[in-house]
């Protein structure tokens, strides 16, 4: 890391006339351009793209890459993001032409191998969820949330045409995507309070549950890293009112093979295969957001899904008129889904359960190593992640969660998620994942403990070893410079 200090922008390295020969001229018979494309459709000047040699480009991106932290290089305990190892075997398989060279509209008969994989993935995701039907279409977790809520809305419109279910209940500990998705799906959102432990405040939930409630969205384990054991009670109360329970699958890593969303009463859920099933996060995407639902909601799923004929062949089922339609073009984020499938197949039933076991063991062990310095409001036990608080350090020594996160970078660790969930002050949300070793966890705990004793003045200026020091974020927002100009 940090081989260089600063890399000029592509545009600053551009020299007129410099180029890389990539393409030949077409060997189709030449025709005057104006005879093909009428002059009024042609651009007057070429786009002012940079002009670079191939080596310029290679050096540029190689040097830029050294300015990043990454899973391949660093422990990355970013809470709620499940930054686990991204297996190289999956990358090599995803690079095969049998995936990359497949056009989304080629005839079903020419893509039987991939359809077999996607069909089998649907089956596996249904079993892991304990739910009956799966759509692989949504492009990200947030789009999965939206899709599932649209499925719920379509279901209610169909089954209770005379009734208006207008509300979605959401705990105050939820990710921001939950309320944003609910709004986009046309619902009014109602916030449900957390109790002192960080679980759903059941009394507040009961008070807010009414006949206009369509869905309750719960993340379980929640963003505090706690499993909410009231979930079956919550499900019963919802179902008695005819409402549905949605499970945000962001934290599935903690419960794979241990407990299934369907068995705890969920009617719909989304997966984050880039988290739970090791899809590389790509510097901020791509993800995917497949959803699983109970059988009675299946007709409303977006189309197409993969179906199997009696003769064993596969086809794309373009759905019934009950389907909510599409939330994106073409099939889905196939490349991400494919890696998830490779990952699941590498694990088998025991392996999947061991993921949950060791994700939870690692988190609890790390919690035990730091809790005397960083109080954990959720208690001494957690699931796959925990939220520590720098509240006392902030009060006594003026050391804030952000300072600690920044200083960790000097110790060669990525920072945890800071200031989330919103219900914990000075939150440090730490998720080690199952792929980290005990040695790494101990080194990280040692760094956290050391930082708590460091000079607050020095911490406020951390990090000190990075190519750039702390940035002026206010300036970036006040006078936005969002592109290079000559």
């Amino acid at each position, binding site marked *: 890391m940090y081989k260089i200090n600063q890399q000029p922008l592509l545009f600053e390295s551009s020299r007129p006339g410099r180029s890389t020969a990539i393409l030949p001229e077409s060997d189709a018979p030449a025709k005057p351009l104006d005879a093909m494309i009428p002059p009024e459709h042609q651009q007057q000047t070429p786009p002012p793209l940079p002009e670079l040699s191939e080596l310029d480009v290679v050096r540029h991106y190689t040097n830029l890459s050294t300015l990043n932290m990454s899973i391949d290089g660093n422990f990355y305990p970013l809470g709620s993001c499940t930054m686990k190892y991204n297996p190289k075997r999956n990358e090599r398989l995803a690079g095969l032409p049998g995936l990359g060279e497949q056009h989304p509209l080629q005839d079903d008969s020419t893509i039987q191998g991939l359809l077999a994989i996607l069909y089998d993935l649907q089956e596996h995701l249904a079993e892991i969820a304990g739910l009956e039907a799966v759509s692989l279409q949504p492009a990200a977790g947030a789009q999965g949330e939206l899709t599932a809520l649209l499925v719920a809305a379509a279901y209610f419109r169909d089954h209770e045409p005379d009734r208006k279910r207008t509300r979605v209940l959401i705990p105050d500990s939820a990710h921001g995507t939950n309320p*944003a998705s609910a709004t986009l799906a046309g619902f009014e959102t109602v916030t449900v309070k957390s109790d002192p432990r960080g679980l759903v405040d059941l009394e507040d939930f009961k008070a807010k549950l009414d006949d206009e409630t369509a869905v309750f969205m719960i993340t379980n384990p929640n963003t505090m890293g706690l499993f909410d054991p009231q979930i079956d009670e919550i499900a019963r109360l919802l179902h008695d009112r005819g409402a549905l329970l949605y499970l945000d699958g962001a934290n599935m890593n903690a419960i794979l093979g241990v407990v299934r969303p369907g068995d705890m009463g969920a009617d719909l859920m989304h997966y984050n295969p880039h988290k739970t099933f090791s899809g590389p996060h790509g510097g901020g995407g791509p993800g995917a957001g497949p959803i699983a639902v109970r059988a009675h909601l299946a007709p409303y799923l977006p189309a197409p899904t993969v179906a199997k004929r009696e003769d064993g062949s596969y086809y794309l089922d373009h759905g019934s008129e009950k389907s909510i339609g599409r939330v994106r073009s073409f099939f889905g984020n196939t490349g991400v889904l494919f890696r998830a499938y490779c990952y699941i197949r590498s694990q088998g039933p025991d392996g999947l359960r061991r993921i949950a076991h060791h994700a939870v063991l690692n988190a609890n062990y790390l919690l035990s190593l730091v809790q005397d310095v960083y109080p954990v409001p959720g208690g001494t036990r957690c699931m796959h992640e925990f939220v520590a608080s720098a509240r006392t350090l902030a009060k006594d020594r003026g050391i804030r969660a952000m300072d600690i996160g920044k200083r960790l970078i000097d110790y060669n660790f990525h920072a945890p998620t800071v200031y989330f969930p919103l219900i914990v002050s000075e939150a440090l949300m730490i998720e080690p994942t199952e792929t980290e070793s005990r040695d790494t966890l101990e080194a990280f705990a040692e760094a956290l403990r050391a930082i708590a004793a460091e000079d607050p003045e020095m911490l406020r200026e951390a990090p000190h070893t990075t190519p750039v020091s702390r940035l002026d974020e206010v300036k970036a927002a006040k006078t936005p410079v969002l592109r290079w100009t000559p």
Partner: protein
Amino acid sequence: MAYIANTPEDERVMLDAVGLDSIEQLFDAVPSKYRLNRPLRVAPALSEWELTREIAGQLARNEGADRRVCFLGAGSYDHFIPAVVDNMAARGEFYTSYTPYQAEASQGTLQAIFEYQTLITQLTGMDVSNASLYEGGSAVAEAVLMALAVGRRSGKVVIAGTVHPEYRQVLKTYLAQIGPEIVTVPAVEGRVDPQALAAAIEADTAAVVIQYPNFFGQLEDVRALVKVARDQGAPAIVSVDPISLGLLQRPGDYGADIVVAEGQSLGNPLAFGGPYLGIIACRQEYLRKLPGRIVGQTTDRNGKRCWVLTLQTREQHIRREKATSNICTNQGLLALRASIYLAVMGPQGLRTAAESSARGAHYAAEALGAVEGLSPPFAGPFFKEFVVRCAKDPRAVLAKVGEAGYHGGVWLGRWFPDLADCILIAVTEKRTRAEIDGLADAYRRALEAL
């Protein structure tokens, strides 16, 4: 077990530290009544070699663009991907990092996104872009949500019938619960008549959506269409083909308000439809409603130039239920690939890709036009994609053309009942004269045989 580092000894030490005897006790918070008391019914674990053998074996059954000459398009195109793109994007520092929340440890990704935003504004002639959206279809929906959020008008959304049918379906899904009504202006001869568009626009029309080149490859009179929208005060949203911008007029030149595109063509593989790249760019005045992540330039404590995620008060993690988009993750790796593609192609390379595609397509249209039983239904100018009408059952013809080794085109009857006898054919710069001649020959034989 794959990817778990803890040894039995580690496990014991760690359990001791947390004061438990077994891992199962860690799950005491999960009531036993709904715990799974059997193994998951999933396929048994495979070692790396077994996995490789099985998956590679399955993939080898597919006959994609590597095995049949590909003339499929309709929003996903077989353009050439330079080796530099694959090689650079495969660096673990890029693809195994995450959203650059910690700017000091993510300058590589942040600078790459800032460059991507700049490249997109250069390509489109627009003022600002973002760190990307999911893909071309939901990008149309996000653009319409943006226009609605700007909030000057709350009436219907008018969309041309020549916009990709799946993009129109996505828009319909996105607007299903929040209104407003969508009015589709039908295509005539494969294009939208500016007067028909004008007639569909009302005083409170919230947005007008068109595509250029359109779904059929036709070059609409985009200037007239945009003008019609803007004259009546409705924001003009245009969906474009980024490769075409090496040759065709830029949206910024003809006055578009918001531009969206499917960015797959810029160095991203076909990959059976995804992950792809949603491009969006707009005029400055729409910036505060631009969805998704945005990278901005700033300085660090020492005054050094650097980059950071900015304007986050627009986003869902701050605004929650008041956010106008729920998008969180962008398509970082795909945006990186698009940047590397544009950097290595340069203005000249992009021009060659666009011009060679157009030349191949025009040659193919002539070659196919000479085949007995094929005729062009539309007379307008086109870029790299065109429609042929087929005198015999087009699906049977395509099946025969397929047997001859070609992905011969996309049947339009799937979306357009009135074009049930038509096929959409795309030509990229990868197609040679011999391949085009071969396609025409395959069509000729197929039509003769049926």
